[in-house]
């Protein structure tokens, strides 16, 4: 990004002068910079610059057969690949009036749970935990805390294999197609997964214990939370768009929530709903539907000191740990259902092509709500496409958190400020490769 920002209005802060730049914030997916500039007690600039190159997926989809859309868009993000594929498939399926079988719905849920686990484990263990354990990455942890690293890898491996059993692969799923699946695991495979999921509980408990001991910054700022909501379920696919400020809306009305606009300092578009910004992701989901969590997850939340409503952005990681507990329990339950019903190879459900068919797909991926919307012609070629990505939705909120946070930190040494800001950005688990890519904090003078 070469552009100069013109956006933020100067805000008064206490006396000091701080200029901070963090170039290419690390341990996040994608590239971004944090820029803080405080002069004569005025916060001149405070923003997260998204410096990832724009990737133009919406343009790429134009003129392509709808069958390719989920495979192309999974390449938006290596970590939410299954989520993008699912949102893409849902958009296509809703456009082309596809009725999914119960089995397809069940298997898709399992895949999303796998991805949720994979992503959350990666995030809390490998990206967040090093901040609290005083190291720069997971690599020194392999020597200093081998048990922790091995546990993380073990859990992640299960998550990846869960995705792979149904979708063929976690990063860029293969077997998920419009209307269903192209591959089905054997009963033995499913039984083995069921057994391993159950055995994972010990690791899950150890995870909760570990994260219960970490000192999370208590910074707090009231904001709006947005997540997909379903009656009686802590689900991730489909549902209504729930908000802490507004009654639920159908997903087709997503534009009224996201209100995308350009932010000059960012290749990702910003969004705003009822307020200037809102937050999506694990904490938003927790705040909106904690009552549907598995009892073990609810207990874990209590143990971790998380209760709704929680306005502490650093606690997004805690909410992720709670979701890990929930997902493992739910996977056991879903696998039991699969075994009970038996997994029967079936052809994908048929599509109905008609002129100008439109559909919106919504999936709550690890980082928050993701929308895909397509218009598909009678020839099966995509005419228009739009993808609204969770990190894009969080960016405005991150900027505002930073602007509220910096004044409280001005007495701290620069390193601390820098680290706090980086941790804040990381807490959101931004996936900037999605919103195109991400991170860098720039402190300038003090």
């Amino acid at each position, binding site marked *: *990004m*070469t552009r100069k920002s013109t956006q933020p209005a100067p805000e008064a802060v206490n006396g000091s002068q701080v200029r901070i730049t963090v170039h290419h914030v*690390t*341990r996040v997916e*994608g590239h971004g910079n944090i820029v803080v500039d405080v002069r004569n007690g005025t916060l001149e600039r405070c923003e997260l610059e998204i410096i990832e*190159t*724009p*990737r*133009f997926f*919406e*343009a*790429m989809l*134009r*003129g*392509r*057969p709808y069958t*390719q859309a989920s*495979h*192309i868009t999974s*390449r938006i*993000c*290596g*970590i939410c*690949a299954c989520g993008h594929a699912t949102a893409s498939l849902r958009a296509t399926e809703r456009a082309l009036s596809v009725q999914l079988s119960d089995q397809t719905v069940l298997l898709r849920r399992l895949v999303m749970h796998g991805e949720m686990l994979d992503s959350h484990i*990666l995030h809390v263990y*490998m990206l967040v935990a*090093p901040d609290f354990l005083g190291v*720069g*990455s*997971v*690599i020194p942890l*392999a020597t200093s805390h081998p048990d922790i690293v*091995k546990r993380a*890898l*073990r859990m*992640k*491996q299960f998550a990846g294999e869960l995705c792979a059993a149904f*979708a*063929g*692969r976690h*990063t*860029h799923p*293969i*077997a998920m197609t419009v209307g269903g699946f*192209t*591959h089905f695991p054997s009963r033995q495979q499913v039984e083995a997964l069921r057994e391993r999921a159950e055995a994972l509980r010990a690791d899950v408990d150890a995870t909760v214990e570990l994260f219960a001991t970490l000192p999370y910054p208590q910074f707090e700022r009231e904001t709006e939370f947005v997540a997909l909501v379903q009656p009686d379920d802590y689900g991730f696919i489909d549902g209504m768009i729930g908000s802490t400020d507004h009654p639920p809306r159908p997903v087709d009305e997503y534009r009224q929530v996201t*209100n995308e*606009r*350009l*932010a*000059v300092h960012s*290749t990702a*578009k910003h969004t705003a709903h009822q307020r200037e910004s809102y937050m999506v992701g694990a904490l938003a989901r927790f705040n909106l539907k904690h009552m549907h969590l598995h009892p073990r997850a609810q207990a874990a939340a209590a143990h971790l000191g998380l209760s709704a409503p929680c306005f502490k952005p650093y606690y997004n990681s805690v909410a992720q740990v709670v979701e890990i507990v929930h997902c493992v329990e739910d996977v056991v339950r879903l696998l039991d259902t699969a075994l009970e019903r038996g997994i029967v190879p079936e052809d994908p459900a048929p599509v109905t092509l008609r002129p100008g068919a439109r559909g919106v797909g919504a999936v709550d991926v690890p980082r928050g709500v993701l929308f895909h919307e397509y*218009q598909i012609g009678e020839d099966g*070629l995509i005419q*228009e*496409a*739009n993808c609204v990505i969770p990190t894009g939705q969080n960016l405005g909120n991150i900027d505002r958190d930073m602007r509220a946070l910096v004044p409280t930190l001005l007495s701290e040494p620069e390193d601390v400020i820098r680290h706090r800001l980086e941790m804040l950005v990381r807490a959101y688990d931004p996936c900037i*490769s999605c919103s195109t*890519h991400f991170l860098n904090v720039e402190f300038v003078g003090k």
Partner: protein
Amino acid sequence: MLAKPKIAFFDFTSCEGCQLTVIDALQTHLGLLDLVEIVQFREAMSEKGDDYQIAFIEGSCTRESDEQRLRAIRQQAMIVVALGACAHLGGVNAMKNRWPIEDVQTYVYGQAGRNLYESYPARPISEVIEVDYAIPGCPIDREEFVRIVQRLLQGRKPKLPDYPLCVECKLAENACLNKLGKPCLGPITRAGCHAICPSHGDGCEGCRGFISEANFTYMREILRGHGLSDVEIDAQFTMFNYYQLAAMGADAPLSQINGNGHRRHAADAEVLPASTFAAPKEA
């Protein structure tokens, strides 16, 4: 044999799935950390070292400022390895090359977004710097990644298969998708992924690039036999290999590329209008 070489990972325009695959490889190959010293891996670590011998580069080059970074890496590294389809082929990123870049920008960011962000047609990194080896795939195959690192440690040149995917697909005794009427680019795509897509019932999309002997003419015939239109066949061929095919100019086995290799799709209007879907409100 290099004694515990220092390696570094860099990312350009990509989904970072290949770096994630490297992290995933640790699940089963934690011993890798004993063989190499990772000095840079932005996605996973904050420490940074600038003295490395092997650079793994993920992602395509999609803007001028990338070129400078690439050249700096080349200057430092003894060995540069392109990691994954984006770096190796241009990959999915190059699909946008079909239109002039300004049109693409307008389409996604609206009129105000035209030229707002730096971007140009996506290229494989070998178009900018000399690349020693490539690890193909979207994403890379974990086992292949480990194998190639091992070969580099032995002081050997990694070698990629130059035969089609069908070989591995047959060894796995899959029912051939093309025989079942489902499009699969296996016959022209470089093997090495154990035919993972056909093994999961889905046709190969060519993410590992084409073999040197690719028989496009008969591949097209096969796809036509499934009732695919020319536009659909072009779409199949160009999902990961747009850059390579466009570079073939008039010889490209595409129905929609005209004589001077121009990348405009016949079905599209001259100028890509701002999308009614994607272009946001102006700030």
